[in-house]
């Protein structure tokens, strides 16, 4: 173990250099303890990236423990490249979500594209063939050309990468709010399928096993700002290099096929993609998970540029690269597969038993660090947290001071035209959502649905999150995100089986942000527990702030649901005239934090809707039961925009023949706007055939009082959505009516109009 440390000439480590590497003085002291000596520059670089927030989860780790991560279906929980759940038939669904926020702000096209590339690698390194992508996006309002530019760039980047590699993008969500103008969010979700007992993991087991590098050659992409700052380092490099990584979906497609071929031929002990912190993190994590060491020779790493130093090679974030471990004797076969697919590959090192990450450059040792000191040994912080002063102010909303809606006819049109609610067709038309011939519910319904060929089953997948709710009440917001995701999955005919999350927050060194973070996690954890769905993977993105302004707390939930039989697959649009429209659930006075309040009153205030998890669960159980009995023609949940927006969407989203509806609501003690546009959770609008009404009613009654049901009206084949509201006093009746074509026109075209795109085609 006591290698020739003369080969590791200590550097004169100045406090500035430590600071440039983003390490605190205290962290530096820990490094000294781990090493028993001063690090050299390369080692300092390794610690710097590995102990960064992004790689080490140092501020979040202790809190993530709150998530329920177990369940009979869990095949792989958090800690690997992705999580996996059992979906029967010997198969596992492997999925994860990841953020690429900052790179997408710097260069929207490439930033978003490489985000897609990164999450795909997480899935196929597990041996799974990716079959679905989704994305959650947040931008500032579209009245700014900068925000338009960001949206267009991000969407075309996602489109380019996903289409080219041939994995369908089957859904997602987009919300607009100026808080994201200087810090857009790009979260990408991917799901793949693998035979349960063939799951690959990021392990570096077995002393003497070979370590191979495959994929793109290493360049100086994305090397930490620290490199640039260090004077002694700039000499070799030319001008200041842009920190932008360029994606290569074609190469990734080759990597994907090659990896699945390794699996088929059983060539690997372990595999890990090189994401953030590239070669360093992949090797440390593999060794640390397996309790082994890894020795690498950077001179053997395929390189794109001349004169790269070990520091640069170790820290490069060039895309489309992986690290493999194979038994001696199998490396030739691995190299053979790579040759077939035209991929660069090289044996770069071996697994050792000394627990060290040892880096050589030829004969010279250039770094030597205990692998688990860098990975497991990373600092963990329980940062101070406190609710902000402004929280009460945010939550205060005096409804008596808020005029009730006067012109509901116009209000509905305004809401349907809000880009957060309006159709996202302009976006998903640019995504190949059909490649793979599994997509049986395309974008445009509550969740995307992919069938599982040969099993008769399908998966419903959605991503959801409402950051305004989270701002107003982070705990409730976290729970509501889970509830909405589960509701969307249930509306498609599925039972929720697993969750992944992407937690986008501001600066964790601020107690108010830390408080938001902790509360949101608790909300998510409690809701997941209540719905009995485990969290199997996830991602944390902190420091989403610009000029001291943090984004709203934005946890995004990715939920996967299992559809037992293809004939349970349900979509949101009305199917035929004459069907009875039912509301499962109950409308309360939930106006705080709604889209209505924002669009019509320019306020983002109040208490968000209250989530009663038991009620929510009962509603899910009810709707799923009715679907499985074959009684449900359509199901659509109430979310942003409330009941009236939901009904309008049911009328107009039919892919070929929009239908009308005749609705009667009773106002009871509710405000008019709360009745129409309030966002009470736990509500689902379903339609059933008239003939089934008695049975359905009976079935719901049998479920007990936890599931309120009311008859809203009937589907018609007219071009009218008519709503009659009965007031508390019978003489107090209001009629409203809209031509469906007018609603459809507003909903379909609003996004393109705001982007200034001519829709003549």
């Amino acid at each position, binding site marked *: 173990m006591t290698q020739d440390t003369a080969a590791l000439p200590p550097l004169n480590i100045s406090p500035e250099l430590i600071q440039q590497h983003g390490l605190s003085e205290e962290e530096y002291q820990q490094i000294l303890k781990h090493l028993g000596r001063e690090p050299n520059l390369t080692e300092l670089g390794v610690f710097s990236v590995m102990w960064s927030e992004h790689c080490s989860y140092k501020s979040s780790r202790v809190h993530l423990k709150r998530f329920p991560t177990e369940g009979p279906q869990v095949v792989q929980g958090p800690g690997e490249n992705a999580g996996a759940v059992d979906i029967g038939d010997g198969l596992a669904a492997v999925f994860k979500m990841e953020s690429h926020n900052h790179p997408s702000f710097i260069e929207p096209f490439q930033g978003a594209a490489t985000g897609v590339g990164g999450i795909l690698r997480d899935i196929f390194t597990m041996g799974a063939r990716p079959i679905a992508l989704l994305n959650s996006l947040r931008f500032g309002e579209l009245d700014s050309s900068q925000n338009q530019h960001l949206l267009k760039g991000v969407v075309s980047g996602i489109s380019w990468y996903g289409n080219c*590699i*041939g994995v369908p993008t089957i859904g997602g969500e987009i919300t607009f709010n100026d808080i994201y103008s200087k810090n857009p969010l790009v979260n990408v979700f991917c799901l793949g399928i693998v035979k349960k007992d063939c799951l690959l993991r990021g392990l570096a087991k077995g002393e003497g096993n070979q370590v191979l590098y495959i994929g793109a050659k290493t360049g100086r992409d994305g090397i930490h700002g620290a490199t640039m700052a260090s004077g002694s380092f700039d000499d070799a490099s030319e001008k200041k290099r842009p920190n932008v990584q360029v994606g290569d979906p074609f190469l990734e*497609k*080759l990597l994907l096929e090659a990896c699945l071929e390794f699996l088929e031929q059983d060539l690997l002990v372990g595999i890990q993609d090189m994401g953030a912190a590239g070669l360093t993190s992949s090797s440390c994590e593999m060794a640390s998970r397996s309790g082994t060491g890894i020795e690498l020779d950077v001179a053997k790493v395929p390189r794109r540029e001349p004169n790269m130093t070990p520091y640069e090679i170790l820290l490069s974030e060039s895309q489309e690269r992986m690290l493999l471990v194979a038994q001696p004797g199998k490396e030739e076969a691995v190299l053979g597969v790579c040759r077939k697919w035209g991929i660069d590959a090289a044996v770069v090192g071996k697994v050792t038993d000394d627990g060290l990450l040892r880096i050589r450059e030829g004969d010279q040792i250039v770094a030597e660090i205990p692998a688990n000191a860098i990975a497991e040994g990373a600092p963990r912080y329980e940062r101070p947290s406190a609710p902000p002063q402004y929280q009460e102010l945010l939550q205060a909303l005096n409804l008596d001071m808020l005029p009730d809606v006067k012109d509901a006819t116009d209000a509905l049109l305004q809401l349907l035209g809000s880009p957060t609610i309006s159709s996202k067709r302009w976006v998903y*038309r640019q995504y190949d959502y059909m490649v793979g*011939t599994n997509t049986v519910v395309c974008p445009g319904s509550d969740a995307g649905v992919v069938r599982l060929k040969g099993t008769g089953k399908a998966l419903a997948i959605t991503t959801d999150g409402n950051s305004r709710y989270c701002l107003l009440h982070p705990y409730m917001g976290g729970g509501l995100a889970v509830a909405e995701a589960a509701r969307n999955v249930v509306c498609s005919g599925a039972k929720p089986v697993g969750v992944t999350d992407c937690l986008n927050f501001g600066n964790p060194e601020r107690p108010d942000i830390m408080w938001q973070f902790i509360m949101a996690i608790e909300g998510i954890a409690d809701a997941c527990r209540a719905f009995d769905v485990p969290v199997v993977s996830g991602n944390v993105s902190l420091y989403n702030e610009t000029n001291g302004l943090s984004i709203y707390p934005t946890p995004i939930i990715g939920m996967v649901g299992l559809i037992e039989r293809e004939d349970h697959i349900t979509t949101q649009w009305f199917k035929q005239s004459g069907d009875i429209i039912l509301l499962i659930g109950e409308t309360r006075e939930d106006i705080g934090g709604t889209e209505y309040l924002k669009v019509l009153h320019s306020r983002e205030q109040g208490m968000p809707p209250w989530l009663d998890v038991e009620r929510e669960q009962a509603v899910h159980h009810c709707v799923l039961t009715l679907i499985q009995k074959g009684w449900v023609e359509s199901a659509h949940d109430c979310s942003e925009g409330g009941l009236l927006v939901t009904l309008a969407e049911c009328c107009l989203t039919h892919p070929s023949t929009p239908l009308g509806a005749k609705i009667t609501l009773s106002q009871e003690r509710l405000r008019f706007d709360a009745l129409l546009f309030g966002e009470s959770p736990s509500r689902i609008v379903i339609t059933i055939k008239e003939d089934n009404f008695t049975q359905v009613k009976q079935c719901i009654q049998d479920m007990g009082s936890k599931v309120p049901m009311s008859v809203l009206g009937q589907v018609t084949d007219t071009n009218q959505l008519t709503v009659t509201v009965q007031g508390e006093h019978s003489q107090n009746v209001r009629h409203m009516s809209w031509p469906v074509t007018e609603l459809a026109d507003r909903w379909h075209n609003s996004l393109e109009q705001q982007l200034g795109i001519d829709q003549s*085609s």
Partner: protein
Amino acid sequence: MGKKRHDPLNIGIIVFPGSNCDRDCAHVVSEVMGHAAHLIWHQERTVQGMDAIILPGGFSYGDYLRTGSIARFSPIMEAILEFSNQGGLVLGICNGFQILLEAGFLPGAMLRNTDLSFICEDTYVRVENAATPFTHTCKPGQILKLPIAHAEGNYYADPVTLSALQATAQIVFRYCDKDGHATTTSNPNGSIDNIAGIRNAQGNVLGIMPHPERCAEEIFRNQNGHLIFESMLISLLGKTSLAV
């Protein structure tokens, strides 16, 4: 060489680096149509034993230079040329069509869609020639709903070539509206003369931009694509049964 009617046909599906509809086509050929699908790596030099060849959609070589431009030099292309010269059926879908253009099996070239973006959506096409091995189970003028998914499907041919295509019924599909009118607004990508698919002069090679393999099963609530596979397979069975 005689084949009995119930013998499964052998359909070769070429896998170029970056093909991504290869497995989708194989699924339709084998699981839906009940014949044998063979994935053939582009480095192979023979298509012996195949009854027909499909060039599937995708992004061969990332389409980094021009769609189909690099794939056309794959070793397998010579074998396919020979196969088609002998009258073998060759179906190019989307990127497969683009490769057939670059390789000179079919005339013309593809430009970027006029709105410059990738478009994934259902389109309607009118069957202009129902007397080809790929369309004979369709009625002349039948309107099919078929999805497209491409960024470069804006077909171009110079005026001389175009009139030749028109004159010899080589235009097999035109984009149209629901009612069968080939209008500018029903043309999704700016293709000249609303062209969505063409055949070669001999009639044994078809290039088509929409994806019939994406709508050949009941679960998609649209089985129009089935007609194209069915036509192709029936003509092969007819031919072989004649030979018996």
